[in-house]
């Protein structure tokens, strides 16, 4: 029977299936960070357990870390204690840890792929919902809670029920200045933030094949914003070219053997999916969000919807509540709305290609007066590469801030945040109330849209500056 890539990766990792219980699934790679792990390590200590496969575990500090001068200590004592606890836990349990002082430190979902830790066909978990990012390589990658972090540390396994398969086909060709971010925002608008609940997406179709690995990661990253725990893209030559020679990728003969395994991963012709949806890339415009959920988005030429025109009472009230929080008027365009801050970074759009895209708009231009623009590379590798290409000089000359790697203003745990009432255009993944700082108002967009808005000081269609 023809099988999907989801079936293939799942099937290769089932350790056992006991009657009346979910399958026991083996986990190849476990990424760990400072926020969701301390209580899991406490649990191991309380039971006197060790980490079963420390060499299949990799830790970094990203959520709580400041993005300012790394030679200075962390000012916030609670964040400092959390990062120190991660380092101590990793020392105690023998886990490789790349914290503040390491040149491999960065956002966990950026460094995994950059280092070649993320590989096709593997199962990969992390105590973070954006673990879906790694599915861009054809890995089955999903976020887990702290109890599950403890289970994987102790046993390298999880009890899992197989999710439904959801085929997301993206046909056609993107217009210039329309990006991977716009594809995924459009999908979330189309199927809703709960549309993928209980499912794993497989993204396919010519528009997906045409994307770089970094763009594919942006798409898989936001699977969770449509409710799906994981999103996968079958590996192809683009994948292998990206991976070849990376630090932890297989080398020499091992690479050849791995490649022949990976080439068997793509879904078979005629494989059956539980659900499916299709999007035409050629119909897409740059997308922006107007509300407090990633599903509340519009094409940039569109108008903020009027709740009065929404039939479903629950949705009507949600949109009305969101517009009150965002202080936006129904029926007006979002383009042209004044903003206070632009944030370029995060596990969604903090990779080198995103920095290049933003720099292409900011080159020879200046950010609007009074506007704060933070550019936060996702990793040291992305930062070094950007600096080698002179992108830092472009950002600084334009009046933007060039910062150290971390999650930063995506979730505002580290002091990088919006002030109450401020509007921010962000390349990150969530526009929830207060996500980027209590009372802050987030407009999600692509790096091109964010950079164009930085130049004008208002929400701006990047095609105007292209």
């Amino acid at each position, binding site marked *: 029977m023809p099988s999907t890539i989801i079936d293939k990766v799942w099937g*290769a990792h089932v*350790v*056992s299936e006991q009657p*009346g*219980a*979910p399958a*026991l699934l*083996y986990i190849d*790679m476990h990424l760990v960070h400072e*926020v*969701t792990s*301390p*209580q899991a390590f406490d*649990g191991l200590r309380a*039971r006197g357990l060790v980490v079963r496969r420390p*060499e*299949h*575990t*990799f830790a970094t500090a990203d*959520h709580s870390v400041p993005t300012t001068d790394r030679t200075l200590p962390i000012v916030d004592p*609670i*964040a400092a*204690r*959390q990062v120190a606890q991660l380092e101590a836990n990793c020392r105690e349990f023998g886990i490789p840890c790349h914290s503040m002082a390491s040149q491999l430190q960065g956002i966990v979902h950026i460094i995994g792929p950059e280092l070649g830790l993320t*590989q096709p066909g*593997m199962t990969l978990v992390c105590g*973070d*919902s954006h*673990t879906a990012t790694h599915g861009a390589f054809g890995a089955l990658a999903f976020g*887990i*809670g*702290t*109890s599950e972090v403890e*289970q994987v540390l*102790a*046993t*390298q*396994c*999880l*009890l899992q*029920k197989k*999710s439904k398969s959801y085929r997301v086909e993206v046909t056609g060709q993107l217009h210039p200045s329309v990006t991977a971010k716009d594809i995924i925002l459009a999908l979330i608008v189309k199927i809703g*933030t*709960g549309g993928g*609940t209980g499912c794993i997406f497989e993204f396919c179709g010519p528009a997906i094949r045409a994307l770089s690995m970094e763009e594919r990661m942006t798409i898989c990253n936001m699977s*969770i914003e449509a*409710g799906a*725990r994981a999103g996968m893209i079958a590996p192809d030559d683009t994948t292998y070219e990206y991976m070849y020679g990376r630090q932890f990728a297989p080398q020499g003969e*091992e690479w050849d053997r791995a490649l022949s395994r990976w080439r068997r991963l793509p879904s078979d012709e005629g494989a059956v999916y539980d659900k499916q949806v299709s999007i035409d890339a050629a119909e897409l415009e740059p997308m922006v969000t107007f509300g407090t*959920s990633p599903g509340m988005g519009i094409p940039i030429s569109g108008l903020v919807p009027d709740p009065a025109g929404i039939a479903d009472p*629950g949705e009507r*009230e*949600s949109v009305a509540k969101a517009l009150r929080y965002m202080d936006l008027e129904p029926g007006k365009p979002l383009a042209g709305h004044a903003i206070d801050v632009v944030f370029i970074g995060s596990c969604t759009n903090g990779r080198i290609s995103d920095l290049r895209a933003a720099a292409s708009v900011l080159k020879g231009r200046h950010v609007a007066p009074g506007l704060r623009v933070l550019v936060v590379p996702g990793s040291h590798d992305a930062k070094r590469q950007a600096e080698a290409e002179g992108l830092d000089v472009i950002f600084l000359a334009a009046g933007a801030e060039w910062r150290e790697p971390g999650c930063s203003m995506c*979730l505002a*745990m580290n002091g990088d945040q919006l002030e*109450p009432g401020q509007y921010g255009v962000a390349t990150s993944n*969530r526009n*929830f*109330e207060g*996500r980027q700082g209590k009372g802050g108002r987030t407009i999600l967009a692509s790096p091109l849209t964010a950079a164009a808005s930085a130049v004008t000081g208002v929400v701006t269609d990047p095609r105007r500056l292209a």
Partner: protein
Amino acid sequence: MKPFTRFESRLVPLAIDNVDTDQIIPARFLKTISKDGLGSQLFCDWRYDAEGRPKPDFILNQPRAKGAEILLAGDNFGCGSSREHAPWALTQFGFRAVISTSFADIFRQNSLKNSLLPVVVPREVHAELFALPVEATVSIDLESETLVLPDGRKVAFAIDPFAKHCLLNGIDELGYIRQQEDAIAAFEARCGSAVNTLG
């Protein structure tokens, strides 16, 4: 783990769809290295004003929430991040169940591991529950997977059988997985992985 028993409680209605984990417990409270002390931060930004005083119009600050053990929530409750701090905060406040029409996947799994029961009911029942008077109580019986309404009518709900078994018998999942050590070791011997981060 304490076995989960049948209980009866008033409802705390929160008629908002897509309540995300950043609302349940804002990220700035995730810098803790402990599981404790999160109950007072539950729904913090809806619950307190800028000076940290309880907002009287928010449901958790009203008398009906005191001692209540069931949160009645809108569609797609718990969407967003994987933070287990969300069920920790809800249980520390005193909730033992959340009733909704749907839950986000990771939140649902995290809840079941913390004896917080995610109860999915049909839309009509959901609407009916929101219309109940303040003092009305419902009871939840996990064993028979039924919700009993104030007028005695029973509404069935479904819980994953394994999670139910663990909750009813106080079984801890990690302990269960560790009993399968032989199968895990055999799997590892059969399917070595190329990845080695210490290499």
